[in-house]
């Protein structure tokens, strides 16, 4: 018990003292995950909106694919990206294996389906709700899309945050394509795994505390936004 409490207090002191190694790892984690989420939002949201509003053959298959991809194991994504960007892979010439770029790519692949799928649902619900009114007013299609995105802004921000949460907590893919190299590709989750295996529980716990705090902040923000804004489709009296 004494050991565990010592570890806990050491971890707290590491967090409070602003340990350089810890800060570096946290900063890289944020850089990788935020970049991946930014790219996933740029691709996933328009894609989700297009699928949500479109009527075309094979739409159900695409929806099914997005939904299936939401639950894909990170290690599978990691393996896929590894095979693509390793020296013998088709994208080996990019020379990004064991770099933050590879980690961003893996996280991007992991969270884009989540963002696309949730966006599709939000936009589809909103469209169903506003379709008759928009049609009656002859609202041009591009205006309708922009208005629906604006209407769903709170839900879409929640979607992005869900993606960020998933990216920050992910370990399987980034450890495969990043290699967990100190000062280069070590992020919070991979560092926790490594430090735990080495027996340096204090740093692992300190990182765990930071990760938990970030997760709490993200979830609080999501909850706050949800409570502040009315539900997407609960707008009819």
């Amino acid at each position, binding site marked *: 018990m004494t050991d565990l409490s010592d570890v806990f207090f050491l971890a707290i002191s590491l967090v409070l003292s602003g340990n350089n190694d810890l800060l570096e790892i946290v900063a890289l984690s944020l850089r990788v995950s935020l970049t991946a989420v930014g790219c996933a939002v740029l691709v996933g949201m328009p894609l989700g909106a297009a699928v949500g509003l479109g009527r075309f053959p094979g739409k159900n298959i695409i929806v099914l694919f997005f939904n299936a991809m939401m639950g894909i194991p990170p290690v599978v994504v990691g393996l896929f990206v590894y095979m693509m960007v390793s020296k013998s892979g088709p994208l080996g010439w990019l020379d990004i294996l064991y770099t933050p770029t590879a980690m961003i790519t893996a996280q991007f692949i992991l969270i884009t389906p989540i963002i696309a799928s949730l966006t599709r649902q939000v936009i589809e619900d909103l469209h169903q709700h506003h379709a008759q*009114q928009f049609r009656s007013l*002859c609202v041009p299609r591009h205006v309708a899309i922009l208005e629906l995105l604006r209407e769903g802004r709170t839900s879409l921000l929640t979607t992005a945050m869900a993606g960020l949460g998933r990216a920050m907590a992910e370990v399987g893919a980034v450890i495969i394509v990043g290699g967990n190299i100190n000062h280069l590709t070590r992020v919070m989750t991979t560092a926790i795994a490594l430090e735990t295996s080495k027996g340096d529980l204090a740093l692992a716990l300190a990182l765990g505390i930071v990760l938990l705090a970030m997760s709490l902040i993200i979830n609080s923000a999501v909850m706050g936004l949800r409570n502040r804004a009315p539900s997407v489709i609960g*707008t*009819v009296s």
Partner: protein
Amino acid sequence: MKDVCLDVEGKRLIDRVSLTLFPETISLFMGPSGAGKSLLLRLLHGLLSPSRGSITWAGRVLDDRMRKRQAMVFQNPVMLNRSVLANLTFVLRLVDNNHPHVAMELLERVALRQHARQPAMELSGGERQRLAIAKALAVQPEVLFLDEAMSHLDPPSVTLIEELILQQQRQGIKVIMVSHDLGQIQRLADEIFFVHQGQLVEHAVAQTFFANPQSFPAQLFLQSQSWSKTFYQE
């Protein structure tokens, strides 16, 4: 509307309806629930396409250009998640008439000026419907559709909206509406289209219709309505 049918999933919901509407009058569709009144309004406004038959306005097939000169108020008004004023300016922008004084004038007409900055979602049912009317008027329509737009509203809202409808009609706007309220129908309607099981079973001038309904479904409907009115009054 000529020989119009509407089939949905193999079921005929509107059955060979033919009718002609004339400008500057209030035409009212009435009939029991599920008769197809709202479907007829949606067909006329082009929100639904007929499975058979044709719908023309002044001899021309309804297109977007023509529909821009029409407006529809739905039973459950749909609001954007923003202020009352922003909801109205959204429509005014669509018709290139987004001047602040126009929006405020319209809000004044529907007695919502003091609510301009309030979120539209916070309006009561009656206020929402008045905003929906303001949005419809913002289009400066030649034809105004009202689909049970005054159901479940408080009496002051109903009076205000009825007055607005009569004003529009006096300004030469064609009003086509669906209502269940016999008193309101008698106050507003110039002509009645009685719909029963997807068919137009009677068309008459309002006074004639109420004095002497010709079709059996219309007679039965009016009897049941007056019976329920007496029942609730007693």
